[in-house]
């Protein structure tokens, strides 16, 4: 198992394609955190995120033979994850849900400031347009650059930059509307 843990992505994919169950498990365990993290940030609900993350991982395993080994694996996985999340959000938007209300309650349950800020930001994320949210999550959660995000979602870098900026502005306005004030106030330097 140690060799699997340290194997590079391409070697792991080769083992998966050869039908090696240990290789499949190692690949899932290597990327489940990333996939689930994106799903949770994009969808805002743990149950939905787990369902979609499982589907994403199954899709990845079943289409591994289509991956180009000359390119890095992670962006390919992120593209599938982001696409799947957006598809799920489209489906969910057509269903009457009380997600906002539930999320609102969840925010009010936290006690300390850091958790409150994180929960408020997660709540505010759900109110963003899908494109803004995708850019924000990929930029801040996966630390991708605007160019990488643009390649992934097939948009110019300038568009990604604009969306990211608008996402930030809307999120900041939401936090301010919710009455959250910064710890450190403005000082002239």
């Amino acid at each position, binding site marked *: 198992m140690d060799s699997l843990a340290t194997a590079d992505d391409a070697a792991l994919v080769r083992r998966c394609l050869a039908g090696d169950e240990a290789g499949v498990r190692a690949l899932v365990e290597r990327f489940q955190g990333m996939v689930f993290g994106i799903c949770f940030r994009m969808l805002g609900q743990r149950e939905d995120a787990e369902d979609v993350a499982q589907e994403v991982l199954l*899709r990845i*395993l079943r289409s591994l033979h289509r991956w180009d080994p000359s390119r890095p694996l992670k962006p390919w996985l992120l593209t599938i994850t982001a696409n799947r999340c957006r598809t799920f959000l489209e489906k969910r938007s057509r269903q009457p849900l009380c997600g906002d209300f539930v999320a609102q309650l969840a925010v009010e349950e936290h006690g300390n400031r850091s958790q409150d800020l994180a929960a408020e930001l997660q709540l505010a994320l759900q109110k963003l347009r899908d494109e803004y949210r995708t850019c924000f999550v990929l930029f801040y959660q996966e630390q991708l650059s605007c160019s990488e995000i643009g390649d992934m979602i097939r948009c110019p870098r300038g568009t990604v930059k604009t969306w990211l900026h608008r996402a930030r502005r809307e999120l*900041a306005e939401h936090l301010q509307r919710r009455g959250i004030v910064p710890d450190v106030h403005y000082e002239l330097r």
Partner: protein
Amino acid sequence: MSTMSCAEFERLLEAAIEGRSTVDEVSLDRHAADCPACRALCEQQRLLDQAIVAWQASAPEAELADAVLARLAFGDADDVTDSDGLSIELEGSRSITSLPGPAPVVPTRSRATARRIASGIAAVAAVVLLVAGWQWFRSPQDTESTQLVVTSVEHAPDVPAEADDNDAEVETLLRSASSAYRVLALDAASAVADASKLVAATNRLAPPETPAAAVGNHPDVPPDDAWERDLKPIGRQFGEALDFLFDVAPEPPPSI
């Protein structure tokens, strides 16, 4: 006095964001000191930077490997048959369904089956209890009204033929109601017996747990017998309800 315009300020702010610098780390403050709008924007962005740090630190985790491997081994094809924009990418995909080793259990499906069985039992129980309630609350009134009718007929000597007809109709109605109630109770008991057999059969058919599918490690995947344990109290309550039904079942009405 700052010579920077608001547009320049915003451009610098965007560049700072793209370069992953926080608002505090760039020298925007001199313009913000003179411009209320930009100062407000700066405050907003500073607050957001704090929230992002907290948000990044609260990354959730999940253990999905067991569930994914189980679905893979059982050829779960739900997600490749729908069209969601990835169908072209998956077209002609080779399914990895022939993994070596024994087939792991599929706890999510067992739970789904258990939920379906429990729902069926609950539905039957609801019907039976409804009937029982109806019998419990309506029988005394019916009997009372019957007695009133009989009494009034007894004190109406000028209509003996009509009284006889009423007696016969009431007796027939009571016998029919009692008979229908007993049939319903027996049907319910039969349904419960069938459900119990189904639960037992499902349990026998479940494949043995393998080390590769250590389902207990997953927080959302209980041990294989968990759902059966959940059903036992339902079955016990249901048995008690049936006993109660048979106890309160009306005896065939006496001849009036």
